[in-house]
């Protein structure tokens, strides 16, 4: 399975390196999107009754990419994205990602996506102390004093409904896709806007 996916990704991403593939007409759209990032959806505790985060929540994120048409119905879409910084209790968190999708459009209104992301989770704070409850008293704990970044590679699947130049996309990002015991899935729901390259050039 591992090798199969690797082979598929290699074929997918190596193809456009050929000079033949880089024609002007192959640049189809500039792609911009805004949406919400549903981190570890349904898998983390949100109250002391044992409920999980399976409600819709808004964590805004933005992406930009260029769509490259391989042939009718098939295209590639590399993009960069940023989940807008969230700060609370002196701790900030940013998520950046660099990703690529292989897109298949069986019908004009529908697009199926298979891709991979390089996700960078950056957590930072500026240090300090905090006194919190411990047992029947209190104790001093420490606020992180630097930035640290975790990186993950994800396997992504998505589906998008398109009308004219706009689309609505539901995508998932499977963390630890090859380790079932630690697998976590993040979802995103976004509104996408495609600007035809011929309008830009």
């Amino acid at each position, binding site marked *: 399975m591992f090798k199969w996916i690797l082979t598929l*990704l*290699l074929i997918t*991403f*190596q193809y*456009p390196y050929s000079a033949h593939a*880089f024609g002007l007409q192959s*640049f189809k759209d500039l792609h911009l999107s805004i949406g919400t990032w549903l981190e*570890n959806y349904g898998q*983390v*505790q949100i*109250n*002391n*009754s*044992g409920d999980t*985060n399976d409600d819709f*929540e*808004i*964590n*805004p994120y933005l992406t930009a990419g*260029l769509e*490259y048409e391989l042939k009718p119905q098939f295209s590639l879409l*590399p993009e*960069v994205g940023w989940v*807008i910084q*969230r700060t*609370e*209790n002196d*701790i900030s*968190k940013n998520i950046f990602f*660099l*990703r*690529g999708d292989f897109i298949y459009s069986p019908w004009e209104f529908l697009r199926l996506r298979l891709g*991979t992301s*390089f996700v960078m*989770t950056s*957590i930072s704070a500026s240090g300090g102390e*905090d*006194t*919190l*409850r*411990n*047992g*029947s008293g209190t*104790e001093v*704990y*420490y*606020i992180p*004093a630097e930035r640290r970044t*975790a*990186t*993950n*590679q994800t396997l992504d699947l998505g589906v998008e409904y398109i009308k004219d130049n706009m689309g609505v996309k539901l995508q998932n990002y499977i*963390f*630890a896709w090859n*380790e079932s*015991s*630690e*697998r*976590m899935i993040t979802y995103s729901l976004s509104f996408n806007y495609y600007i035809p390259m011929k309008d830009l*050039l």
Partner: protein
Amino acid sequence: MKTLLLIYALLSISNVYAFRLITNTSATFSSKEVKFHVTSNSTCSNAGISNTELLSIAEDAVNSYWNKVPSSSLRLKKGSIYNTTDALYLTGELCASDSVSSCDPATTVPTAGDIIIACNSNTTNFPNSAYLAISAPNNVSGSKITGAVVLINDTPTTAFAGLSYAEKRSVLAHELGHAVGLGHSNRNYALMYYQNSDKLFRLSQDDIDGITYLYPNQVIDSCSGILGSLDLKNDPPAGGKGALPQLKINKIFLFNMAIAPTIGFLILMIAKFFTILRFKLDNHSVVK
């Protein structure tokens, strides 16, 4: 103005982070795989649990909580029954008596590598039954934790014995969180909140962010990692079919094969895009 307020409201509705650390140096174990052991002399008669049960629950605890975080590289592993006759694990004081606000590791509980779990009946550690367990890295040098101790309340008034299996599991997971460097969270649904609950079935996002901060997963973590490793073993079995080098593909190599072309492709596309744009603009100027 309304739009700005809407945007502000949207940005305000988000997850919150409140994890804290147990040391001011963000100390961590240097190894990404840390073992925990239970002392052989822990009878845990008041806590009502055997040392093998304790080890088993601790294993379930790490597999149910800390080992399930893909953005963290830390993996806690079940060790063994740690052979010792040192009674200080059972009776010693963990935090120095002159600790005013935080737990400065005392010298009375022995230090060791890895994480040592024991049942302890010292009433300075456990002044009342509200304390189910305590723990701290007690072998710390700078930002490096070499060893930590988790002590279960084994005093005659301990409430540990009356806990359900799920509660014992979350108590152990909480203490192991301290052992690897996490402090308390002020979120009452976090595993690292100071009070236990029988409904802590999963980590909160706060716990996940804390362990991710301390032990961030690195897809690329060294120069050799950037290149990946496609190892041709140099010592194939002599002669016969096995003489051909064996191919060993590691995770980083797989990552590079998947992501590097994507990065390259993105750069090429951006470069090409601007080249074409410049060409078009130049042409446009000429026509004018």
